[in-house]
């Protein structure tokens, strides 16, 4: 068996601040195999993006990786030299950022920004690089790519910019793509098209994909496995069918309750009451405690991520015992 494309062990990413250390990622471990799609789900501030940036080695100082290992095809890249990381970034590991309006440099043309990406990793002529860029744009459904290449970012819509960013990430057919909410700015048809393309890419080329989102319904149809993050920790992880149909963690249940579909369009989704705690000076015990209906005295100690069935891990003292969701809970 080949090594997984990515294996993260006990990753800890900290931001020292005046008030104390923000533990944005706190002991996260997971794997993504070749061609596998992992859905990384959680509320705002749960540490999803920081997990992605940690893998790329792009945590802004004074933030840093404080512990753990990130094995990319067996190589621990937390110890890699800056040159080695530069080689990997954009070529073997690519990331699509959350906010398409801010991802492209406003004063550089699209062709400049894509051609430089090609040439950062391969010695090719400008003409060949431009052809590659145009081809990548066409692959994400951009009509007249040669013309688009001559545009500046402000001349493109948000959806178009996000597709440019996606095309840029695909330029070198990376082994791992970290996609941070890449389709939120797109309309539904394009979203479907992109999801389909990405899925096909993973299947065809063996690219591993980490798809970060708030929205469980997006990953439900896309991912092989789901990992739910809460306050810097994994609270539940497992095959997509298991997690969606038999969620064990109260937080995951809450998230599923907030999935659109059962509700008429435009209506505000059910939200789990309360907020993600500040990731600073956290008290011991389960971090979901103050929002959990099942919490009791036992929850003052931190539960371990326990495997309930093969590949299905839950961090909770009182999991739902593999009971399927009741109809009323689904409708909640």
């Amino acid at each position, binding site marked *: 068996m080949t090594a997984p494309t990515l294996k993260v062990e006990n990753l800890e990413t900290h931001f020292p601040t005046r008030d104390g250390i923000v533990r944005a990622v706190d002991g996260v471990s997971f794997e993504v195999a070749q061609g596998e799609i992992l859905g990384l789900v959680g509320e705002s501030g749960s540490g999803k993006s920081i997990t992605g940036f940690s893998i790329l080695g792009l945590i802004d100082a004074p933030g840093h990786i404080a512990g753990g290992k990130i094995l990319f095809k067996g190589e621990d890249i937390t110890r890699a030299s800056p040159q080695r990381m530069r080689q990997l970034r954009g070529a073997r590991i690519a990331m699509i950022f959350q906010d398409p309006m801010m991802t492209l*440099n406003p004063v550089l043309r699209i062709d400049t920004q894509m051609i430089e990406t090609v040439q950062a990793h391969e010695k090719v002529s400008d003409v060949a690089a431009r052809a590659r860029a145009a081809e990548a744009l066409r692959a994400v459904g951009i009509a007249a790519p040669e013309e688009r290449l001559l545009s500046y970012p402000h001349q493109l819509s948000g959806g178009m910019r996000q597709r440019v960013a996606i095309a840029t990430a695909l330029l070198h057919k990376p082994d791992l793509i970290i996609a941070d909410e890449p389709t939120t700015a797109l309309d539904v048809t394009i979203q479907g098209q992109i999801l389909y393309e990405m899925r096909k890419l993973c299947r065809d080329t063996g690219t591993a994909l980490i798809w970060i989102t708030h929205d469980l319904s997006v990953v439900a149809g896309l991912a092989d496995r789901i990992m739910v993050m809460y306050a810097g920790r994994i609270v539940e992880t497992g095959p997509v069918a298991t997690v969606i149909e038999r969620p064990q963690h109260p937080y995951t249940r809450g998230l599923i309750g907030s999935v659109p579909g059962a509700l008429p369009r435009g209506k505000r989704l059910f939200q789990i009451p309360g907020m993600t705690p500040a990731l600073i000076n956290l008290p011991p015990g389960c971090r979901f405690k103050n929002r959990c209906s099942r919490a009791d005295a036992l929850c003052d100690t931190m539960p371990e991520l326990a495997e309930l069935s093969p590949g299905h891990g839950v961090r909770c003292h009182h999991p739902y015992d593999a009971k399927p969701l009741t109809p009323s809970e689904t409708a909640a």
Partner: protein
Amino acid sequence: MLVFIIRRLMQAALVVAVMSVLVFVGIYLIGDPLAILVSPEATELDREEIARSLGLDRPVWEQYFTFLTAAVQGDFGKSFVFGQPSLGLILERMPATLELALTATIMAVVIGVPLGLYAGLRHETIGARAIMAGSVLGFSLPNFWVGLMLIMLFAVQFGWLPASGRGQTVEVLGIELSVFTANGWKHIILPAITLGLSKCALIIRLARATAREVMLMDYVKFARAKGLDEKRVIGVHILKNIMVPITTVTGLELGALIAFAVITETIFSWPGMGKLLIDSIIHLDRPVVVAYLIVVVLLLVAINLIVDILYSVLDPRVRLGGAK
């Protein structure tokens, strides 16, 4: 683009017209030119005679019109002191001033941008703090004092550099310039530092502030995520964004430098139009003062136009003429 330039030129014409009225009113009507032109012993009849021959008995608007007609033909009257057309005197000295102001500006940008960029990107280092402390000094030291200190040090103490004059010049495209001779360089360096020091400090601070802002932008992170090396991330992605405000401020400051070159030119006896202006004011040489003011206004208008065009070249989001 063309529409924009035409519109700006029309605006410029308006500004110059308003300016000409102000200058005319300010210089020709306040204070009595006859007091200078006519000897105190002259009779009342003589005075009236002279006033009539100079057109000073005509209504104000007619005098202004006469002035304007001559002015658009480049005639601002003859200098009382030199007996030559005043515009010619100004234009003759303009290259010296422009050369000094441009040299000072270029030095300020070439030194200020890298230092500011460094101070912004490595803001926690001792080097960055030293640069910022230096820039505070550059800001607060008075211009004339810096000039005098430089003269004391490099001209008087060490005798390395001359303290006055323009040195050897060569004719380039019909204009006498000193930056193309070694001797000319020796002459221009001290006044250029004097003039440019505070601008350099300003550019350092501006470059640092914008660098700190830009380096946190997502597009810089994305540039790194694409695997670009630091040279390209800083030299292209960050620098190009910084140059947008730098260009605007530098352009505007260039205008100020030309206007404020007066002090530096006086200290270093630099034969530019600023020094001519001071001499003319001392000798009440009105035609020269008027010609100077009009020429400087025209220069400022031209610089502003160039800055606007450059701005739109550097920042594609800015469309000239406001059209989307």
